[in-house]
C-alpha cells in the first residue's frame, strides 16, 4: 500500500484513507520523529490497522511510533463493539500490561550519593532478570496463580507485598476487572509460575533516577515530586505468561477469521468481534495476564523498598503505575454519540484528563500521571493527561526505537557504553554486555523531542524530567 502522508500541523500528520482503510491514520509527530529507517513499515502498519472491522475516528500513532508486527508500536485503535468492532491480541501486544511504575524516594540525590554504590549492589543482587525462570515469589501452583491473576497487585498487597496506598496509585486500583483464569492455558501457567517478581530481558529495567527539572510545581507536588528528589522507575510486564496468552489466542482467532468474514493484510492482526466467544475468551485471559503484570511490578517494588531501606534508610512511595500494552472497554463520544469502544493501546499509555471519574481524589485536579521512560543515558518524563486529547485519551509510552538490535550491536560495545555511562555518573548493572549494547541510548529517538511533540500534539503536558543515576538492566 502506498502511504499518502499529509501534514496538518507541525505536530500532526494524516494518512489519507484508501481501500481497504475504513478510517484515516493520524500520526502525532514532528517530521524529524516520523519513522525514517529504510524498510521501516510503521506507517504502513498504521494504515493496516485502519482496516480493522469496527474501527472508529482514526488509527492513531503516538510520537514514539516504530515498526512492530501487525500493529505498530505506539499505535492506538478503538473499535465500536456494538457495530462488529473487533478485539485483536496483536493490538495489545505479547507483553500484556507491560508498563511502568514510578516510586518517589524519601531522599534527595546529594545525600544518596555516598550510598549509591551499595544501593546498586543490593539491587543488582536481588532483582531477578535475564532469561528463563526465576522470580521473587514462588507460588504453590495453578490455584494460587489463579488467585493472583484475578486480583493482581491487590493480591500481592493482601499477602504483605506492599501497602494499601500502593493500590490507590495503580491504574484500575491494581486489579483489572473481568479476569478469567480458565482462559489461560496450561503452558502460560507453566511459564508464569516461577516468574512473579522478575524484570525479564530486552528493554526492561529498574532505574534509580533524580528529578532534574519540574515544569509544573503544583502538579509535581500532587504527584509527590520535587527537584533533586530520587525516584525509582520500573519497566516490565507479564513475562512468559502474557506472551503465551497472546500466542494462544492469536492462533484461535487466526482460525476463526473466515467464520467472521474478516480479511487481513497481516496474520498478526488476527482478531474477532469483541462480543464473540473468542473475543470474550481473550478479554478474560488478557485481564488475567494484566493482573499478573501488576503483581509482578508490585513484587519488584518491594525489592526496591528493601534495597533503599538497607542502603539509605529511605522509603519509597508509589507515584503511579501505568500499562502501555492493553485493550479496554471504554465509553467515548464519537461524533457526539457516546459509544462503547474497545480501545487498543499497543505501546501507548492511557492519559485520563483532569476531573475524570476514574482518577483517585488526590489526582483529580492534576490529571493522570503518564510515565515516559527514555533511555539509560538521557532522561525520562512525567507528564499529565489533558482535556484536549482526541486519541481516546492516549499518549506516548517511551522514546521509541530507531535502530534495530543489529545496528546497535554494530555501533556500540557494551563495555564502552558502561564506561561512558559510569563517567557520566550513571551506575550500571547489566545482565550481559551485549544486551546492554542493544539498549544503547542512540538506538532510540530523542526522548526530549518525543516529550515536546507529545505536549505540542495536545496528548499530555510536561510535569517533570528525570535523569538516570543507576540502571539495573534486564
Amino acid at each position, binding site marked *: 500500500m502506498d502511504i499518502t502522508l499529509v501534514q496538518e500541523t507541525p505536530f500532526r500528520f494524516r494518512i489519507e484513507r484508501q481501500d481497504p482503510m475504513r478510517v484515516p491514520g493520524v500520526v502525532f509527530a514532528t517530521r524529524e520523529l516520523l519513522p525514517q*529507517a*529504510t*524498510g*521501516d513499515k510503521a506507517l504502513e502498519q498504521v494504515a493496516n490497522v485502519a482496516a480493522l472491522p469496527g474501527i472508529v475516528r482514526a488509527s492513531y500513532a503516538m510520537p514514539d511510533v*516504530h*515498526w*512492530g*508486527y*501487525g500493529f505498530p*508500536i505506539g499505535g492506538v485503535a478503538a473499535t465500536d463493539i456494538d457495530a462488529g468492532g473487533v478485539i485483536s491480541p*496483536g493490538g495489545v501486544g*505479547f*507483553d500484556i500490561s507491560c508498563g511502568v511504575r514510578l516510586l518517589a524516594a524519601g531522599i534527595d540525590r546529594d545525600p544518596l550519593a555516598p550510598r549509591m554504590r551499595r544501593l546498586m549492589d543490593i539491587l543488582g*543482587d536481588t532483582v531477578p532478570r*535475564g*532469561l*528463563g*525462570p*526465576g522470580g521473587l515469589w514462588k507460588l504453590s501452583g495453578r490455584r494460587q496463580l489463579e488467585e493472583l491473576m484475578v486480583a493482581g497487585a491487590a493480591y500481592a498487597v493482601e499477602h504483605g507485598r506492599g501497602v494499601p496506598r500502593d493500590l490507590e496509585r495503580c491504574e484500575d486500583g491494581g486489579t483489572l476487572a473481568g479476569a478469567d483464569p480458565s482462559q489461560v492455558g496450561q*503452558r502460560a501457567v*507453566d*511459564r508464569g509460575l*516461577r*516468574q512473579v517478581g522478575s524484570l*525479564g*530481558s*530486552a*528493554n526492561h529495567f529498574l532505574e534509580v533516577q533524580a528529578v532534574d527539572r519540574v515544569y509544573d510545581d503544583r502538579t509535581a507536588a500532587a504527584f509527590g515530586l520535587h527537584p533533586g528528589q530520587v525516584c525509582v522507575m520500573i519497566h516490565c510486564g507479564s*513475562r*512468559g505468561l502474557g*506472551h*503465551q496468552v*497472546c*500466542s494462544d489466542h*492469536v492462533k484461535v482467532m*487466526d482460525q476463526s477469521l473466515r467464520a467472521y468474514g474478516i480479511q487481513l493484510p*497481516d*496474520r*498478526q492482526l*488476527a482478531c474477532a468481534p469483541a462480543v464473540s466467544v473468542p473475543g470474550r475468551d481473550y478479554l478474560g485471559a488478557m485481564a488475567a495476564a494484566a493482573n499478573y503484570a501488576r503483581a509482578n511490578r508490585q513484587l519488584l517494588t518491594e525489592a526496591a523498598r528493601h534495597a533503599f531501606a538497607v542502603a539509605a534508610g529511605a522509603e519509597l512511595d508509589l507515584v503511579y503505575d501505568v500499562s502501555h500494552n492493553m485493550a479496554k472497554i471504554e465509553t467515548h463520544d464519537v461524533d457526539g454519540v457516546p459509544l462503547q469502544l474497545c480501545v487498543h493501546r499497543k505501546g501507548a499509555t492511557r492519559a485520563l484528563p483532569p476531573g475524570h471519574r476514574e482518577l483517585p481524589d488526590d489526582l483529580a485536579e492534576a490529571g493522570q500521571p503518564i510515565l515516559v521512560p527514555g533511555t539509560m543515558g538521557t532522561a525520562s518524563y512525567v507528564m499529565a493527561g489533558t482535556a484536549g486529547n482526541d486519541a481516546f485519551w492516549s499518549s506516548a509510552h517511551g522514546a521509541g*526505537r*530507531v*535502530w*534495530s*538490535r*543489529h*545496528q546497535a*550491536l*554494530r555501533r556500540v*560495545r*557494551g*563495555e564502552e557504553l558502561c564506561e561512558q555511562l559510569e563517567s557520566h555518573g550513571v551506575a550500571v548493572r*547489566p*545482565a*550481559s*554486555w*551485549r*544486551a546492554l549494547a*542493544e539498549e544503547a541510548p542512540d538506538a532510540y529517538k530523542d526522548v526530549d523531542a518525543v516529550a515536546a511533540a507529545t505536549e505540542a500534539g495536545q496528548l499530555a503536558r510536561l510535569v517533570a524530567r528525570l535523569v538516570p543515576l543507576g540502571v539495573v538492566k534486564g
Partner: protein
Amino acid sequence: MPHESEQWPGEAGDRDRQEHSRRQNPARPDQAGGGVRENVFHAPRVRSRPDPRYPTRGAATIQRARERQGLMRPDAAAGRSGYRTVPHTADLRVEAWAPTREECLAQAVRGVCASFLDVTGAVGTHPRDIVLRADRDEDVLVLLLEEVVYRLDTQGEVPVDVELAPVDGGVRAVLHMAEAGSLPVTGAAPKAVTLHDLAMVRGPQGWTCSVTLDV
C-alpha cells in the same frame, strides 16, 4: 524489503563481538564455569535425515568450511543450508534455508538460539522428543520455535543439537537440551513467535523460511 544493515553470523564484526562477549560478559550468579571457551565460533550441530533428492555430503563439508571462514551466503545456498538474522526494530527476524524442509526448520532453531546465547562447544545433556503437527509448513515452524521458547522459560534450557524427521502432517523433533544458564548471553531472549511476515516455501534451490520473534 531492504536490509540495509544485515549482519551475517560469522561476519568479522559479529565474530569479534561473540569472542569479546565470551571474554568480557559479566558472570551471572547461576553461571557456573561458563566463561572459559575456546576462541573459535562453532555453530550447534544440526542433524536431519538426508533427502535423496539432494547431494548433501560434499555440500555440508564445504558449508562447514565456509561457515568457519564467515562465508555463508543465501545466494550460494544451492544444496546448502544456513541461517541469518536480519534487522527489525525491537524484534528478532531470522531467515533460514536448506535443501530439505526438516533441515530448514533445524537451521531456524539454530539461528534463534545463536541470537541470544553463545552455544559454542555446548553439549546436549538430555533430549526432548516431540511431534508437532500443523496444516501449513510455516505453522510447523511456529510450533517448533514456540517449543524452544517454552523450554527456555520453564526449564531454563536450550537446544544445542536438533534432529528432525518428517511425520504425517508435521515433524518429529528431538531437541538435545543444555542449561541456558551455563552459556554466555549474547542478546535478548525470544519470548514469543509472531505470525508477521511469516513464510516457509519450497523453491528450485530448496526450502527457505523467515520468522519474526518478540524479544
